[in-house]
């Protein structure tokens, strides 16, 4: 797991859409058609009751429907059937719009699930029986613990661990990543996923998940929203919305005897209109859509969140615990500088380094060639022909090239080269020591370059911090999030990399077990911690962390301990996931604020309208100058309904989020959704009133 990060620009702002089967347009026509249908199907009372706010609207709608049939059902009234019908239709629209919002969000997940499900077709598995014979059985009959053989070209029938063999596997069905990955028995890269295809070699796999519990099953259920449980914050918010609704229910119910005391009879349809206008229907209608869409955004990032709680928690992260290798740095050391010693020419050193690395196919070797070329290394094609490579071995700790003229170019660990020279009684340049130390101190690795028996100089190999990360960490710091780097390097090296990457803190000479200690320490200070991991020994830390992001390439143990899995196995995804979590919470807060702020205008529309006949002086409160009482009530109600579909795009996409300080975020959102929430309905209700009165003569 190293090469694939090389050229990946880390940029959370652009939510690159990798999962190929998800429509790029968030609100495609097909999606809307399906959602419209679903919106009606969701009128089932058993489904409606899950949202207390919308359930009140629903019950109100049914009552008004009865009043359409018989306007005098609850005592005689002057109000006509037309008015009741109008109220009923607007209430119906309110409920359907709310259902539509949820259906749209679900539809997007379902599209993704459908594409996953295609891979979940019934396959034949080759079950290895106890006596070693092989029997073909349908994959659906496999149980946990069964062993199956999978050959080139076959689909892996179930989730499992490779117990024998090595194979390259195409996981594009799940990850959308076309490059195959190598998996082998033992170690951290042994887990395979049902539905992926072996494209070379043959493996024996022990099944780890029975039918219906496989990774793919879980994934389908998750993206479909079928197993959606309300997250803690969502429950808290639902509680608040429920209590606000209850308060307004009390307000509206008690208004009947209170106004009757003053000789004012309020008809039921108007009362229900007032109630529906006041309870926070906007957020009530969009709340579940926001949650589903949040999960969906994570999924589009090719990260699989095991629960909405995990997505939410990622918004709360105070501390990131990151491995240096693979996360902060590219993990492979790259040539950074050529340092001649003993009076050798720079040009000679560059050429020698180049020649010594001709046959070195490791990333290090390639980086030496690249750097040498960049620095103007020049070699004679003819000279090179017929040369042969000297492979690296643990014994010599050097590698190089032997040319036809017998010259040997070697590069390797400094002490290995020095030993070789001293053994042959050759001189070691005096300034070698100082240069070696300098490189080590800066956190790099020196390689000595030998031409024949002459030590020309050093190649400075450096662990390079990923492009764009420093800026990213600075952003995180502005948001108040600390980053802690864990590395096995010595403190000196660790300090250098830490400074270069701009992390806030680091733990040097860290063992894998240290991760959990760091996490616990941070948590004891009330901080929420996120980390990434892939190995089995990461599993406890992944479970301990508030957000544990496991790499899909990692072990099953790691994946099971984590609450998120990155299908691309890119540890820096964590940064983007945090943004999505924040966006989710922000969207909820913003729309709740908007919803509640709307009530002010609605009161000024409805209250004077209700009592103007009995107390004409109350028309002073009709500051919007709405035409008639009925028009005022209908306008408020229609605004209340229309605002739901108008806000669906925000609910689905989330409110705009830029990493910045909390104070500025708050000021911006309060200005838009708070102040806007007070002003917009005044304008909207007035406009609707003009239309109703002007065009329809209400």
């Amino acid at each position: 797991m190293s090469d694939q990060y090389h050229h990946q620009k880390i940029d959370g702002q652009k939510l690159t859409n990798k999962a190929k089967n998800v429509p790029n347009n968030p609100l495609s026509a097909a999606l809307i058609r399906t959602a419209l249908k679903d919106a009606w199907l969701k009128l089932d009372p058993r489904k409606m009751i899950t949202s207390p706010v919308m359930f009140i609207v629903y019950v109100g709608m049914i009552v008004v429907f009865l009043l359409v049939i018989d306007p005098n059902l609850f005592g005689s009234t002057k109000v006509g059937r037309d008015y009741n019908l109008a109220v009923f239709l607007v209430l119906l629209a309110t409920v359907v719009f709310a259902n539509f919002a949820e259906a749209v969000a679900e539809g997007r997940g379902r599209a993704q699930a459908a594409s996953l499900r295609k891979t979940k077709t019934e396959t034949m598995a080759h079950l290895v029986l106890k006596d070693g014979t092989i029997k073909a059985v349908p994959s659906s009959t496999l149980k946990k613990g069964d062993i199956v053989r999978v050959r080139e070209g076959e689909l892996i029938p179930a989730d499992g661990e490779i117990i024998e063999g090595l194979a390259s596997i195409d996981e594009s069905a799940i990850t959308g990543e076309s490059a195959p990955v190598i998996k082998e028995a033992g170690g951290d890269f042994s887990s395979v996923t049902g539905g992926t295809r072996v494209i070379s070699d043959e493996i024996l796999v022990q099944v780890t998940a029975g039918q219906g519990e496989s990774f793919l099953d879980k994934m389908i259920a998750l993206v479909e929203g079928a197993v959606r449980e309300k997250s803690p914050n969502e429950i808290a918010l639902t509680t608040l919305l429920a209590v606000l609704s209850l308060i307004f229910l009390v307000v509206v119910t008690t208004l009947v005897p209170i106004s009757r005391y003053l000789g004012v009879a309020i008809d039921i349809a108007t009362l229900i209109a007032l109630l529906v206008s006041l309870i926070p229907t906007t957020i009530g209608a969009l709340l579940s859509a926001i949650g589903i869409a949040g999960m969906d955004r994570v999924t589009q990032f090719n990260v699989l969140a095991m629960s909405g709680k995990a997505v939410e928690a990622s918004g709360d992260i105070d501390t990131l615990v990151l491995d240096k290798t693979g996360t902060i740095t590219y993990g492979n050391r790259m040539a950074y500088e050529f340092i001649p010693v003993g009076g050798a020419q720079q040009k000679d050193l560059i050429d020698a380094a180049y020649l010594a690395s001709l046959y070195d196919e490791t990333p290090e070797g390639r980086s030496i060639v690249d750097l040498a070329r960049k620095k103007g290394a020049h070699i004679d094609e003819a000279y090179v022909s017929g040369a042969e490579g000297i492979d690296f071995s643990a014994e010599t700790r050097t590698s190089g090239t032997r040319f036809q003229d017998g010259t040997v170019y070697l590069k390797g660990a400094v002490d290995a080269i020095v030993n070789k020279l001293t053994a042959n009684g050759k001189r070691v340049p005096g300034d070698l020591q100082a240069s070696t130390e300098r490189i080590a101190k800066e956190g790099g690795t020196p390689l000595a370059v030998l031409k024949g028996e002459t030590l020309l100089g050093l190649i400075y190999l450096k662990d390079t911090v990923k492009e764009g990360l420093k800026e990213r960490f600075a952003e995180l710091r502005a948001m108040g999030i600390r980053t802690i780097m864990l590395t096995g390097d010595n403190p000196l090296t660790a300090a250098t990399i830490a400074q270069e990457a701009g992390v806030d803190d680091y733990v040097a000479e860290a063992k894998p077990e240290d991760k959990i200690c760091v996490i616990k320490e941070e948590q004891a200070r009330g901080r929420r911690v996120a980390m990434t991991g892939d190995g089995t020994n990461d599993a406890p830390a992944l479970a301990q962390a508030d957000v544990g992001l496991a790499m899909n390439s990692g072990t099953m143990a790691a994946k099971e301990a984590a609450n998120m899995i990155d299908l691309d196995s890119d540890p820096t995804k964590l940064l983007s996931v945090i943004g999505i979590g924040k966006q989710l919470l922000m969207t909820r807060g913003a729309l709740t604020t908007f919803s509640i702020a709307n009530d002010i205008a609605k009161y000024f529309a409805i209250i004077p309208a209700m009592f103007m006949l009995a107390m004409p002086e109350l028309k002073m409160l009709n500051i919007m100058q709405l035409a008639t009482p009925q028009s005022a009530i209908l306008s408020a109600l229609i605004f209340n309904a229309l605002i739901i579909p108008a806000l669906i795009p925000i609910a689905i996409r989330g409110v705009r989020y830029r990493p910045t300080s909390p104070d500025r975020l708050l000021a911006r959102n309060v200005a838009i959704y708070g102040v806007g929430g007070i002003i917009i309905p005044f304008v909207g209700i007035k406009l609707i009133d003009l239309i109703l009165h002007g065009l329809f003569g209400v």
Partner: protein
Amino acid sequence: MIDLLMIIVFVLLVTVFMIAIGTYMYRIFFFTEAPFDRLFLPVERVIYRLSDIDEDASMNWKTYAASLVVTNFIMMALMYLVLRLQAYLPLNPAGIPNMPPALAYNTATSFITNTNWQAYSGEVAMSYLAQMLSIIYPMFTSAATGIVAAVAMVRGLTGKSPLIGNFFVDLVRTIIRLLLPLSFLVALILVAEGAVMTLKPYVAVTTFDGTVQTIPRGPVAAYESIKHIGTNGGGFFGANAAHPFENPSPITNLIHMLSMMLIPSSLIYMLGLVLKKKKQAWVLAGAVWFIFLSMFATVYISERLGVPALTAAGITGGNMEGKEVRFGIAASSLFTTVTTAATTGSVNNMHESLTPLGGFVPIAQMMLNNVFGGVGAGLMNILLYVLLAVFLTGLMIGRTPEIFGKKIETHEMKMMAIALLTHPFIILVPTALALALPGPVQSILNPGSHGLSEVLYAYDSGAANNGSAFAGLDADTVFYNTTIGTVMMLGRFISIIALLSLAGSMGGKVATEGNVVSLRTDTPFFGAIYVVVVLIIGALAFFPVLALGPIGEQLVMWFH
């Protein structure tokens, strides 16, 4: 112009006392060593020994709340006994008979809940001993109960432990170190200014006109001082703080108002000291003052404008009906604002005779119940709305909302929901009930919108544990005695228990160290958000009934 200067000086005086007493309370409740230990500790030790109290044991919220409720009910029983038996007990020079059971129950409930709703008139219904043992006594203990509940809540929100202190110790320290010394000093100042303080009997005199007048007296000053310091509010006499013996001069009036503001404001300052963020205290105090001053301006201007029909008839000077000349419109309006902000319930003018918009102010403040609020209960309600404001806006910075570094989660929201729902519920439901039944409607003095205000005011006052009234309503009926009694109980104990539970669960949480990421609650911006949340959430529930009551009546008076 002088009136403007008066209000500025008043705010400054309150602020000075707030700093002094807030600092003192911080020392009493958050340190083992406090000022004047040499004087107070021996007294406290004797009380602990007599009551078998272990002063070092800290309680979880459940034990704390249970001790609070049990102690209050025992005290209530003692008070009830004296009211029922006062005719047989000493210190009854006027020969006042025993109180009937329903009224005695209503009175005991009223005073133990810090409401001080009075369905009786002190001159004719209570012996001196009953005034002392059944009224002065709960005036101290109910105030102390409120204070210690608020202190416990602050401990939970800011502390590191689910243990939130020892109720008994807190109660004793509050009474011995704070309430008794202050009440004693203030009482003597009141006497110097003309308040009565005697155990001598009523005097019957022949007036200069030859008529007979019986002048009631009693231990008034000792009663008046704690009545205001503890935001209790019940009058020794029927006319309450409008009575010349309770509130003889503009100076005593000022002392009464400062006394009422003293502890509610000091608790805010104490919170700032506990948080080691005085700015937090200033922001909250500023936000609360903003609402307070807006309310004062409303009642003041409305009373100055007076009644248009009277002005047109050449009657000058605004609306003086029900007001005393020595206070005038400014000091009466300020007193009205103070007494319903700090939910004391004492009155120096008759609220029923305020202009409708003037009457709107006390009603609205009791509905909000957090414009400073009563001793302790006020801070608890302020914190409730701070939590609510943090929850609503905190989400908008993309984090689970946090208060003082601790997350507001499901349990907290449930407890907040209970506290939030209770108040409108116990105001609106009984109001609607009273107005729907033929009997209770008979108690209304001024029918129509004003009658609605009378009934609304009664339950609003009970729910907010205020105790003042639109006194025209004849509330000494079985219906009002029972329903208002119940409302006072629920208004007092439901929110205390819910918020102590919230405090307990917050106490068990680890606060995030360093608050770079959190929503900052100590900025003027948050102060503004707090005000808006209070006005929207707190007021939206009451807008319809206010529109039909005082607002509607005022519009009719102006534009009819």
